[in-house]
């Protein structure tokens, strides 16, 4: 058996580009001052989207993972970057959401006439670009310590976004988020240290071959996964998320909810499926699934009980994240079927992407509503659909995906997960998936009901909102629906570059 080593592939430099382009833009903004911040950011959005699409095209045309060995130093001394099919899907999803949110923010900033907003706007652009770079670094990272640094950069970019408006309650939420995230990344770092002590490497590809059943690895993985769960806000570590995501400005909430919490989830997926030996992966998978199911049920009920729209959407995020964790036992492969060949793997990846698009659309629609009426109390929004028909439509379409009603990406994802649960004879998980869908239907319907209501006193917008602003949310919601047209079977793109990983699965 020849050991797998990293070798720079053609197009590997695209991975470097995806990581450093946004950083260069941040430096350019800092050098050239706030006046040109928006222009530099918009140019970077176009370039970054092109890079993400180029990576996906390269993956499809070559059918193999892209790799880049930084400075030609081979791991374990050097650092490798690698993008397989799943990473490629994450990169494209991130680029799409960042671009839509960036356009929304640009239009929204144009509406603000008061002079005080300039500093917050520049901070928003800088943090959004830094966040994009950190996300890309997480998705292409192959070195556990490098991933730790990327996760910390992600936190440092996300925390200021929470408290952009500088009110005491958002600063409190930001501080709480920072503390949760810090403990999470320190536990992750401790786990990485133990793994290095045991195996002498931090490279994920090398670990996939070296990993064996031993107590040090089990302790390390447990520490890392618990740390990442705190960052991913899975029940019962979700307490920081609702105030942080609901208090942030709408475009910031959209990226936080859609993208930032996906980075730790992605890493847990890689640790459990690539590094953990099969028995450990099975135990971890069962525990994660229990937490995921609890998350779906508990936070869906909490979402139903919220009086404010943004808090409702934030609780719905925790619930929808739960679906990503019930993937683990369902995607447990067998000798002739690796995890990434199962329908649950495709279902999980589709849930990740469709939730990102739908949740960003929902937060942007909520932002339009707050912009127009000056508040987001659901009870006082009766008839808002007549004033803001496009936003109501965007909210409804995004809701389809969260509920899992066809046609939508959420439907395909949940249908695949449900099928996998039934095939495996796992009635509890199947029932949880269905119950989560019904509860999501209930909380989305609460808002749609208000949108279509005919109140005795017609609701009046505090200020006019341009159609362009609403269209950003609608575009994301339509993208979430379009994902529903992918075929219902294991998706080839997501398997690119997986073969040869984790040889424990190989016959």
């Amino acid at each position, binding site marked *: 058996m020849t050991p797998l080593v990293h070798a720079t592939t053609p197009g590997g430099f695209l991975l470097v580009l995806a990581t450093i382009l946004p950083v260069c833009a941040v430096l350019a903004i800092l050098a050239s001052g706030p006046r040109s911040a928006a222009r530099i950011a918009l140019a970077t959005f176009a370039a970054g989207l092109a890079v993400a699409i180029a990576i996906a095209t390269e993956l499809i045309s070559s059918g193999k993972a892209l790799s880049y060995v930084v400075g030609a130093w081979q791991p*374990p001394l050097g650092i490798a970057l690698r993008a397989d099919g799943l990473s490629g899907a994450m990169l494209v999803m991130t680029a799409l959401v960042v671009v839509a949110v960036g356009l929304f923010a640009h239009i929204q900033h144009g509406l603000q006439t008061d002079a005080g907003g300039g500093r917050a706007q520049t901070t928003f652009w800088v943090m959004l670009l830094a966040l994009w770079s950190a996300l890309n670094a997480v998705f292409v990272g192959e070195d556990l310590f490098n991933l730790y*640094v990327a996760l910390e950069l992600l936190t440092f970019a996300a925390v200021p976004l929470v408290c952009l408006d500088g009110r005491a309650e958002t*600063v409190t939420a930001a*501080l709480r988020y920072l*503390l949760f995230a*810090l403990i999470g990344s320190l536990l992750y770092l*401790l786990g990485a*240290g133990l793994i*290095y*002590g045991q195996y002498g490497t931090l490279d994920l590809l090398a670990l996939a071959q070296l990993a064996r059943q031993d107590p040090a690895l089990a302790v390390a993985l447990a520490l890392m996964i618990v740390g990442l769960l705190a960052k991913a806000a899975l029940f019962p570590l979700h307490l920081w998320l609702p105030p942080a995501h609901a208090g942030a400005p709408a475009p910031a909430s959209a990226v936080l909810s859609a993208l930032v919490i996906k980075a730790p989830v992605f890493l847990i997926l890689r640790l459990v499926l690539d590094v953990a030996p099969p028995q450990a992966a099975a135990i971890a998978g069962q525990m994660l699934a229990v937490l995921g199911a609890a998350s779906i049920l508990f936070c869906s009920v909490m979402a139903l009980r919220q009086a404010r729209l943004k808090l409702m959407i934030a609780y719905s995020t925790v619930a929808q994240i739960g679906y990503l964790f019930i993937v683990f036992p369902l995607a447990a492969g067998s000798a002739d079927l690796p995890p990434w060949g199962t329908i649950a793997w495709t279902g999980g990846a589709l849930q990740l992407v469709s939730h990102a698009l739908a949740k960003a659309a929902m937060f942007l629609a909520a932002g339009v509503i707050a912009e127009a009426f000056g508040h987001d109390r659901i009870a006082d929004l009766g008839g808002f659909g007549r004033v803001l028909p496009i936003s109501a439509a965007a909210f409804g379409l995004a809701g389809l995906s969260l509920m899992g009603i066809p046609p939508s990406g959420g439907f395909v994802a949940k249908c695949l997960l449900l099928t996998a649960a039934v095939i495996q004879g796992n009635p509890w998980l199947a029932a949880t998936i269905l119950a989560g869908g019904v509860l999501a239907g209930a909380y989305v319907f609460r808002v749609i009901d208000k949108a279509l209501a005919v109140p005795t006193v017609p609701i009046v917008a505090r200020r006019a909102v341009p159609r362009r602003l609403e269209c950003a949310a609608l575009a994301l919601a339509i993208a979430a629906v379009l994902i529903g047209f992918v075929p219902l079977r294991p998706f080839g793109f997501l398997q690119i570059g997986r073969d040869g990983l984790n040889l424990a699965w190989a016959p």
Partner: protein
Amino acid sequence: MMAVLQPGVLFGLCGAALVGIGLFAVITHPGLLRRIVGCNILGAGIFLVFGAVARRGAGPGFDADPVPQALVITGIVVAFSASALAVALLKRLAELTVDDRAAPDESRSGL
């Protein structure tokens, strides 16, 4: 007794103790400043564990494996930035709440 006094083992045990103290402080103390300090103690413990790992993984003729030491340096920089960000937020929060106490008007209702 001699086994405990070997530097690698000693570092590891000290690191484990600091991790325990730090986690205890972070989880049980309600005060935010104490929690930030707790995070720092936790981080110091983890860096000591890296030191023990470096010592144990030393190649023949070397005192220690340089890779964990390089990681610790980066880790300290990251932990320092995290503490700075947390303290800056805490300072801002203190200023905001002091302003509120000085002028107890409708701005308090937002809390």
